[in-house]
């Protein structure tokens, strides 16, 4: 089932520094929504707050009308999962792929584990016998597929993607992005994706928000990238710089 996400007036401070200023955004069910902005603008922080990895924030975050703060942990885990930026840091180096995938099933008391793990591996296009490998025996792209499988295995409705391809090289990036697009079509995920690469956003996202210093500058649809319909100076600058860069490449 597809579920919408709504973030309303999300504010966060680390000590004296306010990192997010009343951020609000709505992600429709089944949509892929992008978050773009310079480094340190608070993109990851939005994901970490909305997923309750960080719980000292104010505002409301609702998934399908349910406040994430009030959701029982199990429900939340089975509704929302995250894929991290760096596949080298997001898999436990001493856990085999099998135990990485099995952990979530065990914690949530889900049966039928062998079959589910095999299915998750097939979903992300990895051979099932990779289950017995350790992360250091996999390439970066394969690790990221495992990280995606780990998120899939709890059958969430909402996936947070924190720059899921930025640690991978270009050819592998395309593979992983296509995998994500295919999974969204097959399973009807709602994606909230952080990226600093507008080409990726153009490829994946229906709409995206441009962020600067913890504020949302503007929310744009995908067409704005090519048609130049952005109104805010910062958005124009960002999109212009990115198009120039692409032309230069």
């Amino acid at each position: 089932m597809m579920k919408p996400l709504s973030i309303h007036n999300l504010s966060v401070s680390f000590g004296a520094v306010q990192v997010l200023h009343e951020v609000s955004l709505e992600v429709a069910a089944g949509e892929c929504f992008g978050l773009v902005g310079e480094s340190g603008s608070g993109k990851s922080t939005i994901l970490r707050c909305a997923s309750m990895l960080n719980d000292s924030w104010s505002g409301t975050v609702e998934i399908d009308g349910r406040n994430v703060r009030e959701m029982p942990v199990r429900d939340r885990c089975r509704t929302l999962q995250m894929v991290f930026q760096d596949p080298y840091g997001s898999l436990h180096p001493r856990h085999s792929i099998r135990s990485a995938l099995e952990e979530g099933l065990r914690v949530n008391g889900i049966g039928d584990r062998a079959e589910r793990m095999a299915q998750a591996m097939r979903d992300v296009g990895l051979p099932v016998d990779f289950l017995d490998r350790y992360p250091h025996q996999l390439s970066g792209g394969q690790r990221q597929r495992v990280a995606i499988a780990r998120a899939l295995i709890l059958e969430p409705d909402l996936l947070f993607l924190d720059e899921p391809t930025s640690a991978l090289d270009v050819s592998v990036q395309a593979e992983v992005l296509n995998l994500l697009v295919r999974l969204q079509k097959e399973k009807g995920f709602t994606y909230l994706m952080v990226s600093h690469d507008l080409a990726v956003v153009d490829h994946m996202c229906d709409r995206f928000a441009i962020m600067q210093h913890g504020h949302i500058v503007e929310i744009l649809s995908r067409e704005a990238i090519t048609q130049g319909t952005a109104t805010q100076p910062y958005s124009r600058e960002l999109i212009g710089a990115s198009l120039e860069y692409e032309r230069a490449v």
Partner: protein
Amino acid sequence: MTNAHPTAPAHRTPQFLTATRNILVFLARQPTSLFGLIVLAVLILVAIFAPLIATQDPITQDLNNALQSPNAAHFFGTDELGRDIFSRLVYGARITLTVIFLVTIVVGPIGLLFGTVAGYFGGRVDTVMMRITDIFLSFPSLILSMAFVAALGPSLNNAIIAIALTSWPPIARLARAETLTFRKADYIAAARLQGASPARIIWRSIVPMCLPSVLIRLTLNMATVILTAAGLGFLGLGAQPPMPEWGAMIATGRRYMIDSWWLVTFPGLAILSVSLAFNLLGDGLRDALDPKQMNRR
């Protein structure tokens, strides 16, 4: 292929065994850690087969044969009560091993638990727990053990308790420092997102990461444990006569040292070689468990 793997444990055990074997092979390849391994193996074998190896009863006195220098009947001579020093050393290995074993199985888990919990939760939990370890750490361990034994009454068991009480704080410190380095790691965040409880995260994700350095530290610690136990024995606060504890043997032999050098020399050599062995083994283990080495397996 797809449904051929019913359960995980069937796969985990061989992995653990191969890792152990690889580490042993690595240790055996270097002369220093090989020496450590051999001494440790000899110590264990001697302790197990003490009744077969010892030539005489370690406690039976024979005043007619007191203070004999090393000869064919008494390899390491006899002490002031005519007891065979070789046999006493052999039985003393049991005491030494018991002390090391008990201290280690108490200190390892306590230190690991304290350190990982403090490191993982941070904040006030961390502050309170680390101040407690600081209090223990602020005394030299021999002095603190002496104070404990003096309070509890001198005996081997109390010496073991005292040594355990004084040697967990460095392990806790180490485990905490290690935990701090990866508590923010994405794989911990992923485990939290999967709904794992803090206890489960500490046990499944953090403890395995701390284990290598804690093991190294424990091994290096064993040398100190042996020396502290011997020190307490020497001061009469550890094993009580007539137990053949190495430190206590030196203490009593001290009075006859000028004429009968063998009374202190052989127990001294035993203590020296065993604590040296543990030090070398710890160093070897540090290389063997180095993450870069681990990646090659």
